């Protein structure tokens, strides 16, 4: 395998609905932005592409990947579609990495999109719930918010996590997004606002849950030679990991914790793992990526994280999977302020701020979640953060971290069935 760098990225602004554009046009917007950011890159220099979208039901068009590819003018070069539920975008990013790492391509475009506005919200929930076992789970009341609510109720039972701690995640991510022009929801909220919004699946309220979106995102990945020809500030991908778990969460084992390098067996004497309170796939993906990037103590060695916060609860659970804190300490981790941005006022009393900012962009909860684009959106936001170009792309430097040399991106599918973790670092 050879080193792979990201040299450019672009995102179409995520909206509740984009009736003015088909998916090809949205991908084109993200692609054009990406190309505009690296003027030395000509379309002829792109060796091929990987494309991603989650649901054929939303798209109502099979082989949509090739239609985006031909719209971009990238035929007859290689392309394929990558899909894995909510982690579709993260898997696509890693498929792009594989294309370059293997030597098959010197320059690869990874693009993704979703068009979720094409059905009404409750139909959309039905489409998403079809990504659960249709023999045993879907007919009982297929609803992803219900599944995640069951998972967090067990987390609350095991560890004493509180709904206020979950609400703090929502306050943080909406507030971060206040300064991100790409975000779909830019709001100043209080913990009370989150708790007082409509109850969707107990204990998750409307503001604990991300919304559906239309949108697209694109990343250009390149070999070392090409990366330094194209930009002075390439970002190196130093670790990739992909984890999986049983589709039916009823089938998840109750065994021993998979230990991170900074943990020991005695930390978890009575914990049955992963059960339904934790995401074993997230732990697996994280540990693979840490090993590859040579990370031993993630909270000290990573500057920021963009993670898959489809639910406030899953952000808390993911702190633990990624070993930013011990299993069970996720609620306390946010309550103490560790994942907040140091420079932003959240209207909350926090003991400490900015130990490791999580979702500086606003995450899925505030930016939106056009599934196939989401994991790539995280890569783009992390790329700009590491490059130090947030001001250029957001129009304000409010969200630029002072130290952003190494970031982690995390993409997650259906109750933790597919999870990807990729480590991105300053490459120049």
């Amino acid at each position: 395998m050879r080193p792979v760098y990201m040299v450019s990225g672009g995102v179409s602004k995520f909206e509740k609905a984009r009736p003015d554009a088909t998916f090809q046009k949205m991908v084109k917007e993200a692609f054009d932005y990406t190309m505009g950011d690296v003027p030395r890159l000509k379309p002829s220099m792109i060796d091929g592409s990987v494309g991603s979208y989650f649901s054929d039901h939303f798209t109502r068009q099979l082989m949509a990947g090739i239609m985006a590819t031909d719209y971009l003018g990238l035929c007859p070069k290689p392309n394929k579609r990558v899909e894995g539920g909510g982690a579709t975008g993260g898997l696509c990013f890693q498929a792009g990495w594989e294309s370059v790492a293997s030597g098959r391509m010197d320059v690869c475009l990874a693009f993704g999109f979703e068009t979720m506005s094409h059905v009404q919200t409750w139909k959309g929930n039905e489409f998403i719930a079809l990504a659960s076992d249709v023999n045993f789970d879907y007919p009982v009341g297929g609803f992803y918010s219900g599944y995640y609510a069951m998972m967090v109720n067990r987390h609350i039972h095991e560890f004493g996590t509180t709904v206020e701690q979950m609400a703090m995640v929502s306050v943080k991510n909406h507030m971060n997004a206040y300064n991100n022009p790409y975000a779909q929801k830019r709001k100043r909220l209080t913990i009370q606002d989150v708790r007082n919004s409509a109850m969707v699946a107990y204990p998750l309220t409307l503001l604990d849950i991300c919304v559906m979106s239309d949108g697209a995102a694109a990343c250009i990945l390149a070999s070392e030679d090409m990366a330094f020809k194209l930009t002075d500030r390439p970002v190196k991908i130093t670790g990739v990991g992909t984890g999986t778990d049983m589709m039916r969460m009823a089938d998840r084992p109750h065994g021993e914790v998979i230990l991170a390098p900074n943990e020991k067996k005695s930390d978890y004497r009575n914990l049955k793992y992963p059960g339904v309170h934790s995401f074993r796939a997230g732990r697996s993906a994280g540990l693979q990526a840490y090993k590859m990037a040579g990370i031993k103590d993630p909270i000290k060695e990573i500057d920021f994280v963009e993670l898959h916060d489809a639910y406030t609860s899953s952000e808390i659970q993911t702190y633990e999977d990624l070993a930013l804190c011990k299993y069970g300490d996720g609620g306390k981790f946010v309550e103490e302020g560790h994942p907040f941005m140091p420079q932003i006022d959240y209207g909350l009393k926090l003991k400490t701020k900015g130990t490791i900012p999580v979702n500086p962009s606003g995450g899925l909860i505030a930016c939106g979640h056009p599934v196939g684009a989401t994991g790539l959106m995280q890569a783009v936001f992390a790329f700009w953060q590491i490059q130090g170009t947030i001001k250029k792309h957001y129009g304000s430097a409010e969200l630029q971290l002072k130290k952003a040399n190494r970031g982690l991106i995390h993409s997650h599918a259906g109750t933790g069935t597919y999870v990807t973790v990729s480590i991105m670092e300053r490459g120049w």
Partner: protein
Amino acid sequence: MAKKIDAKTINAPRHNPAAKLDEIMTGTTVFNIPFPKDLNALKTMSPIIIKHPYYVEYIHSYGQDSPFFAGLANKKLLGTRCGKCSYTYATPRLHCTKCGKETKWVELPQEGRVHTFTTCYFGSEEFLKDTPFHLVLVEFDGVDTLFLTRLIGVEGPEDIKIGMKIRAKFRRNSQLKPTDVYFVPAG
């Protein structure tokens, strides 16, 4: 589309400026669309949005899992057990995920405990009519995995406790769906 107004407004203020009507999928049939004389004006035209129904009847087989549904129709809750490693599945699978060997069918106890739960006030379109409904994962003594089901006989989430005993009941007229079994508080 039936929706329960009480669920949505459970936490709403008395005067709610954010109140709005739900969008509906009915409309007027249109046979003509305005068109500009100047083709350059076409790019400022609003998008045309049409309704596109999509309905399919599948010939869906439960395959090797079929005995589970036959069991429900006969008031039996069936799981599977690995002959080699004895791992026991509350939601059946014909091959053991731990060792790969074929499992055998076993009858599960009809009483278990709530492993975790939720109450859904919204849901996928197909289940909106049922809201609010309660989902639980059931744990059984001597069984390694859990079983997803609906719990009835309770009002709200405050009535459901992790660890509480619950008991299986079966529909008399089987629908050959996993919802042929449901659980109630054991009393």
